[in-house]
């Protein structure tokens, strides 16, 4: 544990920590472009210069390259170090355009920040700026090579970290060019991270370009609902439109990155056909009336068919808070069934896996990255949960052996095929992890867990909150909708953010749907009450490993300003809610419904 002094502060850091990180640990920021915690040191940009006044090394040094050593005395404010950093900015600005106001990165640009911070304002170079021809890189990422400061982050990320092969660096000296051999869509399923990792505006999110400035963003820490991994994100919205999603760092979960599927998935939230108003019997209504009508229908159905004729149906995509209220509702209306799953197969599978990993044997993405032996068993991580494939690659890069049990898949790393789980030398591994999906035999995994105390399992569930709802299923004896409908007793369904196949709905006389997506259930329902999407509320999901993660409200619900009649904007009649903004989180609607039922039972209504 070397002890050193940085700007008169004594710092003790772990062996191998760079000066830059040591300084960061005591809140001394050192400018940097090429260094990135996930990519490590490069020493290319030279902007992190500090001066070592005493100790084993002296003089101007790059803080990202030099490991902290006992007795070092470091100054980040020494005039010579400051002058070096100022020169680096001056050199970078020789060729960087001076057009921040028309750059999409403006306001969230590292180069802009450091240029202003360093006080570089007068151009001493009298030559022309170098220019490049940009490439078409597909519908998601815009390429503006003139803005490049050659920090090599993109190519280090794309090739080394993500394992992509169709993007790289070409040319030398001042002609260094980052791009593809020829124009075309980037092939990596993790290409969107180029946008996050580029310190200037070379790569920007094409789907959100010139839609908002950083200081106008509505944003909040959130969790990706795309799969059961629960990668941390920061969705960005403006004028009630979800513009883009950027990765949010969480070392235990996704690290610094997210997959393209999670990143470029704004369309569901912005969909013009989203249910925005309550609907009763095909007529637009308000939420209060719709809830009252729903109560009446519940009573009527009970009188007609007797108790137990209604099923309360949730899903594995609903937030945990709403899912927790379903049993309460089911109890109060004497529901015939409480369901969180459609098919019996999925219901039993999720339950047994939750049972399996409930004992603490689940592997986080960080466990996977740190593993030395990974077994991919009967699943396809790159398609089912892309970031899991990224985690496998990181383990492989650090020397882990990756085994795939006879299965036709691709992974962004080398792997060895094995016929069965028994052919994998699990006992020799220090930190083995088995990655599977619900098709795996839990009995077999259970035996392996008993046999190998260090073994961990990462089961890929189908949806964001499969784990959380499975816990409730066990606690409240929920059954699958398939089973509930088998005896034909169910005559009404209250669906809360559930995707029920049309075939199952066909024989049900009464359907009420609470949802924010225009699903088949919503189409078939007599009563529709809009709920909010995850970015429009606070809530939580429990991911595949049993990790509960909170997500915060990013934006208010409502029709995006862009989708309104131009004549109607700016609005001439001012209201407290935006057009189409009556939607409430499912948990609030359920709470209201439960309160109405309780009031009714006490004779208050």
């Amino acid at each position, binding site marked *: 544990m070397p002890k050193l002094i940085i700007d008169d502060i004594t710092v003790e850091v772990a062996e191998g920590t760079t000066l830059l990180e040591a300084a960061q640990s005591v809140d001394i920021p050192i400018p940097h472009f090429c260094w990135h915690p996930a990519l490590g040191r490069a020493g290319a940009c*030279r902007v992190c210069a500090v001066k070592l006044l005493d100790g084993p090394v002296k003089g101007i040094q790059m803080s990202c390259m030099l490991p902290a050593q006992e007795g070092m005395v470091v100054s980040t404010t020494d005039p010579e170090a400051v002058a070096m950093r100022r020169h680096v900015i001056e050199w970078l600005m020789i060729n960087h355009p001076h057009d921040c106001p028309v750059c999409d990165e403006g306001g969230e640009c590292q180069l802009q920040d450091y240029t202003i911070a360093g006080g570089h304002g007068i151009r001493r170079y009298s030559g022309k700026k170098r220019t490049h021809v940009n490439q078409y890189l597909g519908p998601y990422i815009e390429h503006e090579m003139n803005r490049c*400061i050659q920090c090599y982050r993109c190519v280090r990320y794309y090739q080394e970290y993500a394992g992509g092969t169709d993007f790289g*660096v070409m040319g*030398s000296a*001042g002609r*260094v060019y980052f791009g593809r051999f020829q124009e075309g869509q980037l092939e990596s399923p993790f290409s969107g991270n180029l946008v996050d990792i580029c310190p200037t505006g070379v790569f920007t999110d094409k789907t959100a370009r010139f839609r908002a400035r950083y200081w106008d963003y509505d944003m909040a820490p959130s969790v990706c609902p795309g799969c059961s991994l629960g990668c941390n994100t920061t969705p960005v919205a403006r004028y009630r439109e979800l513009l883009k999603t950027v990765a949010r760092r969480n070392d235990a979960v996704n690290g610094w990155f997210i997959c393209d599927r999670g990143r470029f998935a704004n369309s569901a939230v912005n969909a013009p056909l989203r249910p925005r108003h309550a609907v009763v019997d095909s007529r637009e209504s308000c939420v209060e009336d719709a809830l009252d009508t729903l109560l009446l229908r519940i009573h009527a159905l009970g009188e007609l068919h007797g108790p137990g004729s209604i099923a309360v149906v949730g899903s594995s995509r609903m937030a945990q808070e709403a899912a927790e209220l379903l049993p309460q509702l089911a109890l109060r209306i004497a529901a015939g069934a409480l369901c969180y799953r459609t098919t019996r197969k999925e219901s039993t599978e999720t339950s047994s896996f939750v049972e399996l990993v409930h004992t603490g044997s689940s592997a986080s993405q960080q466990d996977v990255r740190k593993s030395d032996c990974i077994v991919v068993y009967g699943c396809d991580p790159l398609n089912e949960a892309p970031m899991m494939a990224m985690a496998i690659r990181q383990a492989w890069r650090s020397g882990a052996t990756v085994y795939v049990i006879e299965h036709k898949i691709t992974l962004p790393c080398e792997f060895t095929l094995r016929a069965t789980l028994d052919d994998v030398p699990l006992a020799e591994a220090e930190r083995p992890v088995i990655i599977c999906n619900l098709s795996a035999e839990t009995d077999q995994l259970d035996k392996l867990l008993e046999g190998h105390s260090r073994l961990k399992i990462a089961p890929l569930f189908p949806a964001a909150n499969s784990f959380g709802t499975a816990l409730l299923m066990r606690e409240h004896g929920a059954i699958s909708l398939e089973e509930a409908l088998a005896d034909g007793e169910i005559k009404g369904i209250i669906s809360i953010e559930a995707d029920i196949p049309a075939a199952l709905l066909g024989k049900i006389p009464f359907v009420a749907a609470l949802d924010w997506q225009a699903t088949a259930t919503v189409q078939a329902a007599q009563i529709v009450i809009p709920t909010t999407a995850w970015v429009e509320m606070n809530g939580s999901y429990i991911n595949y490993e049993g990790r509960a993660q909170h997500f915060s409200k990013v934006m208010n619900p409502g029709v995006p300003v862009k989708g309104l009649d131009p004549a109607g904007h700016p609005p001439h009649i001012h209201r407290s809610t935006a057009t189409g903004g009556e939607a409430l989180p499912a948990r609030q609607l359920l709470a209201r419904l439960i309160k109405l039922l309780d009031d009714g039972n006490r004779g208050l209504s």
Partner: protein
Amino acid sequence: MEQILFQHNKPGRCVTFAEYQTEGGFTALKKALAAMTPDEVQQVVIDSGLRGRGGAGFPTGKKWSFVPRNLPGPRWLICNCDEMEPGTYKDRILLEANPYSLIEGITLACYAIGVRHAFIFIRRGYEQAAANLQRAISEAAAAGLLGENILGSGFDCAIDVHVSAGRYICGEETALMNALEGKRANPRAKPPFPAIKGLWGGPTVVNNVESLANIPYIIANGPAWFKATAATPEAAGMKLFCISGHVTHPACFELPLGMKLGDIIGGPCGGMRPGSSFKACLPGGASTPYFTADHWNIPMDFDPVAKAGSRLGTGGIVVFDHKTCMVAATLNLVRFYARESCGWCTPCREGLPFVVNLLETIESGQGSDEHIEILREHIKYLNYAFCALAPGAMGPVDGLLRHFEDEIREHNRNGKCPCRS
């Protein structure tokens, strides 16, 4: 004058394998394999005082001794023949005349370090030299002097010639290793140094052609003999000096290390061209600060040249006469380096074009004295680049400011180059 490397030279052609052998070639290899341990070979090279002839002048034997002794896995020797320093052509002259000394030297070095596979990384333009080396390797292998179980000693050694794709930066040893591995020729961070972790992660020694070609003669004749061939007691051995520019006979000469600059130009070079007088020279290739007439009596050896504010470098002496505009000469050199930057780090990639721009401004008569100050800043801050390319490129600029600041000011004052009529 006694010649070491050039002793086998035949007029107008390359020496043959048979001639090289009859003239005493491969006796050193036979001697070492028969009667010397690898450590003894290494010790003789250390004792000889041989310093690397590629430019940095690091003692060759000491470099070998940094390779860890008992590390498992392969280790490598690379002969650096990516000779791209402007004004330097000694390795080409040597290899076009005689590739056998190098082959024998590499084999001896491999024996001393425990390497079984060496590479010769050769500049793309050196087609004749590469062909000579290929031929020499097959001849040596056919004669049992290379390959498996050399001369029945149980020692195996293979040599491969790798023709570079061709960039100046490939001469930097870590960039060279990246290029050899098939990667972009960007320099690597040091530490770890190549002797610990180099080519494909194994311990690696990178030596210049001339350094390795001297080894057989050191082994054959002993360290004391080698030391004595130099002109001063401090220096050791002979050196290939390649002289170009405004002298009467520009050529590559093998001269004793420590010979005075004036003696070189006045002696084998036949003095300045008729009608020319000496103004300045690059003492050791294009990345070394200028010498002027004041340095006429400096012994051309590593330490004295360094003490005089320049570097012996590769021994490529470029001579400028009194009609040369030193600003224009420097501009020409820095343009080369700006073009040859690998593009990895900011100071080199962006700073050198800035220096080119400043020198252009001054040379065209548009400059002012503030440009001199900016040049001075660049001399200082380009030192903090990733590798030695940018600091080297600033060598002549440094020399320009130290010795010819008046000439720059004259440009600025007159609004035109004083050397142009």
